[in-house]
């Protein structure tokens, strides 16, 4: 099996008395889109900055593309691409010029025209960066990370502060990177972003990974199935054959690890009573539910 692109064991980092990252293990394989999901202040940016070589660590083993980022040199930096959480381009340079400037930093850059296509900015190539919308600026930023043709791409909260259509466009660009065979390490605090983009998700809370796996399977094994419906008129929750909780919109929800039996009991009862169960839905918990469960305290 190929060497993992990122391998972290027991990573620790404190700022004064605050432990930002507390013994973190993670592995990212080549070609994977890996999402690092967590609320603000959970240690995402600290971790990604250690992996990018910006920050020292207090303890732990870190290997990125076979090297320790804290000691890696120019050859290693030619193999990674970084999109920071916030970066404003020089407004005086056009999109094309900005890409050409960065292309010149790398030993084997990807042709600028190709990068323009990849990030959907071919039509704005001669627009000054200062005149781009927020979403276009971000795509230029992704383009700069791609222009060196890196093997590994770090994207730190790539869509924070975007309107829905700009997010959608950014997702398309990031989704397109998969086709290039790039490994992508993405941090985000949006569940839907992790679900839409990632092959694998790790959820970090207060400096520790609390769950890890493909987004569809994450937490599924133990998590209960949810049965939702509107309470029929004239029925009190206590009359139902299964235990339910009320939700905000007048519906009730039952959580069960034995959904077949629960559904059977519920529908048999409804037939006997001659009532409908409006809006009946049976579903596995979404990543959002898992996330809220794990991050609530």
């Amino acid at each position, binding site marked *: 099996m190929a060497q993992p692109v990122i391998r972290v064991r027991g990573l620790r980092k404190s700022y004064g008395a605050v432990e930002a990252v507390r013994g973190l293990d993670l592995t990212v394989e080549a070609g994977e889109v890996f999402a690092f999901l967590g609320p603000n202040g959970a240690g995402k940016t600290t971790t990604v900055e250690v992996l*990018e*070589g*910006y920050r020292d660590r207090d303890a732990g083993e870190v290997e990125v593309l076979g090297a320790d980022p804290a000691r890696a040199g*120019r*050859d290693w*930096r*030619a193999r*990674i*691409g*970084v999109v*920071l959480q*916030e*970066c*404003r*381009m*020089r407004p*005086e*340079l056009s999109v094309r*010029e900005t890409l050409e*400037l*960065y292309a*010149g*930093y*790398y*030993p084997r850059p990807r042709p600028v025209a190709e990068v323009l296509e990849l990030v959907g900015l071919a039509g704005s190539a001669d627009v000054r960066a200062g005149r781009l919308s927020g979403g276009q600026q971000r795509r230029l930023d992704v383009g*700069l990370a791609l222009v*060196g043709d890196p093997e590994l791409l770090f994207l730190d909260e790539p869509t924070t502060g975007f309107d829905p259509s700009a997010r959608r466009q950014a997702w398309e660009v990031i989704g397109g990177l998969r086709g290039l065979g790039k490994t992508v390490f993405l941090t985000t605090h949006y569940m839907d972003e992790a679900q839409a983009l990632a092959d694998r998700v790790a959820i970090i809370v207060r400096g520790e990974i609390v769950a890890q796996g493909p987004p569809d399977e994450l937490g599924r094994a133990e998590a209960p199935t949810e049965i939702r419906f509107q309470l029929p008129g004239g029925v009190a929750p206590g009359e139902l054959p299964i235990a339910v909780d009320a939700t905000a919109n007048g519906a009730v929800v039952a959580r069960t690890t034995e959904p077949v039996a629960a559904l059977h009991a519920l529908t048999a009862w409804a037939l006997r009573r001659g009532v409908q169960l409006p809006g009946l839905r049976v579903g596995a918990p979404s990543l959002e539910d898992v996330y809220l469960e794990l991050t609530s305290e």
Partner: protein
Amino acid sequence: MSAAALALHQFRYDQKVFWRNPASVFFTVGFPVMFLVIFNLVFGSGDRISGLGVDVSTYYVPAIISLAVASATFQNIAMTVTIDREAGLLKRARSTPLPGWAFMAGRIGNSIVVSLLMLVLLAALGALAYGVDVPWSRAPAVLATLALGAATFCALGLALTAVIPSDGAAAPITNLAIFPLYFLSGVFIPESEIPDGVLHVANVFPVRNFFESFFIAWDPRTVGAGFDWGDLAIVAAWGIAGVLVALRTFRWTPRGR
């Protein structure tokens, strides 16, 4: 790409950014030209400055060139590097294979080229409009003094960025650091009008030493090659101090967030 080619690559784009930015062109190129014209207008270009023995225009051509060099280097670098730092551009550049020094070389090269251009522009304006002789025989001293001053003020500009907390504070702090020195050092007001005590204080700071050495290289009454070694040594000492402070305190990551 070779190291020198990388620095040249960075320099070409720094030049584009400089010439396309209306504020940098106005303050760095327009301001000194305006000062030279206004001072000659207000004080009468052919009038003698009593106590100095030179006429107004012969005094102000080297004075305003000194100002233009400090502006193209110290002010330009302190402001643009701080703005780039706060925008996240310096941090971003650190994630690429571009060596830090190549980034700096591009920016410093830009400042030195603009300084040389201002030398040509202001010397030509002085010669054509006010008949101030260009000191061709002392060209080596003029160029060497300018190069040393430019290098020193670049280093001091980089050193200053460490105390500038945000992009909004870049212009006020930089101007506050240098504008009083222009007044106290005889760049704006002829030194014969400035009390001795003030000049002694100004002598501690490199604006005064640089102007003094540049004036001597330019002054038609100067005999010899025109190197003012004493003042040049002080300018160089400030430059070395600037480099040492910059090496210790310079940061690539934004401070304002």
